[in-house]
């Protein structure tokens, strides 16, 4: 029984520099790093030390509190260095790749839920499965009421998932079959009007339409199969399923993925086949212009990794946008035709198809909540966003529960944060609150 969900609230931010649907060629870099901060809520414990030889699929570190969850190397080569930050927090496990990759061979079978689980865990693919509530890596001992896969990325200049998957439908289906074993409920594949996914079997296909954040899996879950207190839903993105499918097809961790290199600071934005953890400068140093902010992920909730950074585990998009920093004279009253605004105090609402080249300026200073009703316009859930945020700020867990904290993830608030007149960092507030509730109730 397929569901049709029409999302009316939200907004598409049109930026210049969307990736052309062409696959570019690049050499595989030698410098790699797996970064534990990619995985929120993780307490990493190292399984290797500098100088160790690893294969693609060898465990680099694992979660201290759930040792089954392993994080593996995307390449074969040598562990070069462990970079630690404050309080000896592990930031990067740096690797140097061999010229020819050698893979760990896994005996995998998708016969039962247990087989699928152990295959995903040993190969390091498990972290693709995230859970609602709390937006963290799923716990293998839970049994989710359903699994949701989003087939849409609606964020600005995002990768087109259809382009990423086209031609690999058989592998995709293999991944879906494996995932179907993991839940007693349904696997939902939430897609827009594109037909690529229509032939997918073993899943319930739901049609989602509307502006960003309709592609956010949390929004889809809310409309199709909302998470109540005590329930768990696992979520992932469609291209993740490809990696899972390949594991069950070939028995090895082939982490390669296609990412969109996009943004106004990219000379020729297009798609590239890369490995997670690959060094961005080595691959795209010539493509990305100076003075850019390099983001792994989208411009609303991705990580500022800088040009020396690495492709994130979860990301299918690398963005380079102009770094701001310049004061703007009388900017608060000038017409500013070059700004895109969700409010109508700018002229951008009259030119809905114009693409904007936005920089990283805050365009104002942080203030208390003053304007009301603006979050509601871009928050397509039956949740009162400002009241939920206020309960989060005051750490009132009872109120948070009542107002729907179990259904939200920071990314769902990204548009609120974008359009906030008072420049409040909503995603940070939500992340902190989710961690608090997890600690107290999880």
């Amino acid at each position, binding site marked *: 029984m397929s569901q049709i969900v029409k999302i009316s609230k939200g907004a598409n*931010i049109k*930026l210049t520099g969307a990736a052309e649907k062409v696959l570019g060629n690049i050499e595989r870099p030698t410098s790699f790093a797996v970064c534990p901060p990619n995985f929120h809520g993780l307490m990493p414990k190292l399984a290797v030390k500098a100088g160790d030889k690893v294969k693609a699929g060898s465990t680099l570190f694992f979660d201290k509190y759930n040792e089954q969850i392993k994080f593996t190397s995307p390449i074969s080569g040598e562990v070069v260095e462990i970079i630690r930050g404050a309080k000896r927090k592990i930031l990067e496990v740096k690797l140097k790749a061999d010229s020819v990759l050698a893979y760990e061979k896994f005996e995998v079978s998708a016969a039962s839920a247990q087989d699928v689980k152990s295959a995903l865990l040993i190969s390091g693919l498990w972290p693709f499965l995230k859970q609602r509530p709390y937006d963290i890596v799923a716990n293998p001992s839970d049994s989710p009421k359903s699994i949701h896969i989003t087939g849409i990325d609606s964020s*600005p200049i995002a990768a087109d998932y259809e382009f990423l998957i086209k031609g690999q439908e058989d592998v995709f289906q293999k991944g879906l079959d494996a995932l179907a074993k993991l839940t007693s409920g349904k696997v939902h594949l939430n897609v827009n009007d594109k037909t690529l996914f229509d032939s997918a079997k073993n899943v319930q296909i739901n049609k989602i339409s509307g502006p960003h954040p309709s592609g956010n899996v949390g929004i889809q879950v809310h409309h199709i199969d*909302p998470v*109540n207190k005590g329930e768990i839903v696992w979520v992932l993105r469609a291209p993740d399923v490809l990696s899972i499918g390949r594991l069950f097809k070939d028995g090895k961790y082939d982490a390669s993925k296609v990412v969109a290199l996009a943004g106004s600071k990219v000379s020729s934005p297009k798609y590239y086949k890369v490995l997670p953890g690959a060094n961005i400068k080595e691959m795209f140093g010539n493509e990305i212009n100076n003075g850019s902010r390099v*983001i792994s992920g989208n*411009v*609303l*909730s991705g990580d*500022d990794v800088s040009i020396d950074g690495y492709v994130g585990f979860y990301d299918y998009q690398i*963005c380079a*946008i102009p*770094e*701001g*920093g310049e*004061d*703007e*004279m*009388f*900017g*608060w*009253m000038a017409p*500013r035709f070059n700004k*895109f*605004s*969700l*409010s*109508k*105090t*700018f002229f951008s609402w009259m030119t809905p198809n114009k693409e904007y080249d936005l*920089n*990283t*300026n*805050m*365009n*104002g*200073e942080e*203030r*208390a909540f*003053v*304007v*009301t*009703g603006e979050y*509601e316009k871009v928050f397509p859930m*039956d*949740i*009162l966003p400002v*009241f939920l945020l206020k309960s989060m700020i005051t750490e009132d867990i009872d109120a948070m529960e*009542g*107002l*729907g904290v179990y259904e939200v993830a*920071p990314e769902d608030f*990204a548009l609120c*944060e*974008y359009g906030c*007149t*008072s*420049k409040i960092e909503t*995603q*940070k507030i939500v992340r902190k609150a989710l961690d608090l509730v997890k600690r107290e109730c999880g």
Partner: protein
Amino acid sequence: MKALNDFIKKIKPSDEGKFPIMHAIWDGTYTFLFVPGHTNKNGVHVRDGIDLKRTMIMVVLAMIPALLFGMFNVGHQHLLAIGEVTRDMPVMEMFMDKFIFGTLKVLPLIVVSYGVGLGIEFVFAALNKHSIHEGFLVSGMLIPLIMPVDVPLWMVAVATAFAVIIGKEVFGGTGMNIVNIALTARAFLFFAYPTKMSGDQVWINTSLDEGQQLVDGFSGATGLGNAVEGGKSALDEMGASTFEAFIGFIPGSIGETSVIAIGIGAIILLLTNIASWRIMLSAVIGGIVMASIFNMVGDDGSFMAVPALHQLMLGGFAFGVVFMATDPVTAAQTNQGKWVYGFMIGILGILIRVANPAYPEGIMLAILIANVSAPLIDHVVVQNNIKKRLKRVKTV
């Protein structure tokens, strides 16, 4: 521009120094001249161009038509009172005289209001070590617009100080206040100095130069003041028929008389989405409903029988609904709550105005009462949302 930017950054005083107010003043000036080029660190990497300054300046902009009209009307009413012009003459006659007279009367009120209010804001910003928040940009303009022209300047100063300190700063500043700042100032004066805020002596400036005298039979009462006694016929007689009240050449507080000028402001606020259309619409509906109920029960010729549309054109109803009821900080914050909140203002505004002889105008009290009820209204909406979620658990 670059030179100015370099200069202002060079003279930045320390916020830890002996005189933190210097830093507050510097910061206020700097952020007035420039939007600081701070960049996003975590979370979103790009941000909307809007900020609170822009929002507030839009509201001030929306008040300009009412202000200009008010200035002109102050002069017009004055010349009418001393017989220089009569109601039969075209209103544009002696345009500059009227406008200049009005400007000279109104400008000092604006200067005092902004001067006192911003002064206090700077002191609190320095004490609390935060930057100047923009809320008073709007309040500072609202206060003169809801005063009678003859109010003494020192009263405006005292009322502004009271409103900013007790109405806002004790709650934590912009965004934290419970009741509308400008209405706090007005209510303060209304109850502390009723003779200067009501009656028939204050609405028209009757200062006389040598050789001038008031016209025979001059009455300085507002439309509402007359209507309490004489109903609709008194209004028509004094030149405040529905249409005349809509245009606005009638006695009243400086900014409140012209529904047209206020309407232009309302259009600006609605087009820019700054004010809530829900509140405005439901307040007007509430006003019409309440006035119609009075129409049904009132005797012919009485105040109760003044037609609903005419009621809405009079007094501060339009001004209050457009500029004060829609203040997002003190209004209900949920969309459903805004409907209830606006409707309540409409009902109460007309109810107090008509049913209570002590107060010739009720919209100020209606908004203040609605302000303090807003959290309760929101509470109900929030609880509904919570209950809906609980119900979902039970049905699963």
